[in-house]
């Protein structure tokens, strides 16, 4: 059996591309866009989300047989909220500057529909190793969209990639100007709309069939 055919690989690959949580399932957009002005904040946000989603999938999946059915949402939210608080406190303690830039959006990971959706929809009914791969895959799918949007906005908006100037000075001398519009909120909506279009066009089918 080839690696790409295994169930474990599929649990990772499907949400990372063909069933991408943002572009295909339209989940988790809330926090996705606000942090995409710079790659740095988008990158930290991606790491934070991957940590929370993988951790909560693993914990819920381990506990899935002992959680009573009718209070499962509260248990899931409790696990997610605890992991988010850990992340938030960690960022505050060691990377204060970035945590200030991310402001309330780390806290809003709690209400990110991707995480509750995956714990409720996948981790509750699957063994831990699949749940972890599913969490990683969703995190990667979310992160890839976030980082692409942030890359475009930072490159065209302020002429930088990860805070390093990449547009040569001679371009500016020749009359090139940074596109201030890219730094404003509407640009994020439009970029993500175009990316969803591109992805749907490339995959060719409604992601859910795969």
């Amino acid at each position: 059996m080839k690696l790409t055919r295994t169930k474990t690989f599929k649990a990772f690959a499907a949400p990372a591309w063909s069933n991408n949580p943002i572009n295909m399932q339209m989940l988790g957009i809330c926090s996705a866009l606000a942090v995409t002005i710079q790659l740095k904040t988008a990158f930290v946000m991606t790491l934070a989300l991957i940590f929370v989603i993988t951790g909560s999938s693993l914990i819920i999946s381990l506990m899935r047989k002992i959680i009573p059915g009718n209070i499962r949402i509260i248990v899931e939210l409790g696990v997610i909220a605890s992991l988010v608080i850990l992340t938030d406190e960690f960022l505050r303690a060691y990377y204060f500057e970035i945590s200030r830039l991310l402001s309330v959006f780390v806290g809003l990971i709690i209400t990110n529909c991707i995480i509750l959706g995956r714990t409720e929809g996948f981790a509750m009914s699957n063994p831990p190793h699949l749940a972890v791969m599913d969490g990683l895959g969703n995190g990667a799918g979310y992160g890839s969209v976030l980082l692409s949007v942030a890359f475009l906005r930072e490159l065209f908006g302020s002429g930088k990639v990860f805070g390093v100037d990449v547009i040569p000075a001679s371009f500016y001398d020749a009359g090139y100007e940074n596109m201030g519009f890219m730094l404003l909120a509407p640009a994020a909506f439009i970029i993500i709309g175009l990316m969803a279009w591109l992805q749907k066009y490339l995959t060719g089918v409604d992601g859910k069939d795969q």
Partner: protein
Amino acid sequence: MVELVSLFLNSVFAGNILLAYFLGMCSFVAISKNLNTAIGLGFAVVFVLTVTTPVNWLIFHYLLAPGALAWAGLEDMNLGFLRLIVFISVIAAMVQAIEMLIDRFSASLYSGLGIFLPLIAVNCAILGGSLFMVEREYTFIESVVFGFGAGVGWMLAIVAMAAARIKMRYADLPYGLDGFAITMIVTGLMAMGFMLFSGISL
């Protein structure tokens, strides 16, 4: 008074919680397919935001903020790190309580709003409202105005979007652009329009 009106207008238009801060997008995309449901959910969000933001203000300033427990003789206590988990529990509890109250006193409102109320507990706009209230250090009155304004702004955006999507049904879009993609692009154009209000000052 003028500052309060200005804060209200800012939270409805230029600082719209959906179009400028991207909060509440999930239900925005899902619910804006239908105009009547959008209006119902909009009212529910206005209601819940107006109630939960001040309630969370009271809880934060009398229980959680650094030194807030001075009235209990615990000056050095700082429970600020608990605010995420407390806010989300308060929101869930308030939503539940409001649902029961409406059910008891107004059957017609309940049948209109009822199904949307549980959805609201996980709407990022509600938690975002409380977190912004802490971060921007609003006073109590300001938190009431901000909660109400943010709710009205969210409702305005979703109702406008639902109305626009009715018209879009007749548009012949290229493959892949229909649905989510065009919704986001139209939202972007709408956000541009709302940003123009940032020139208003009282």
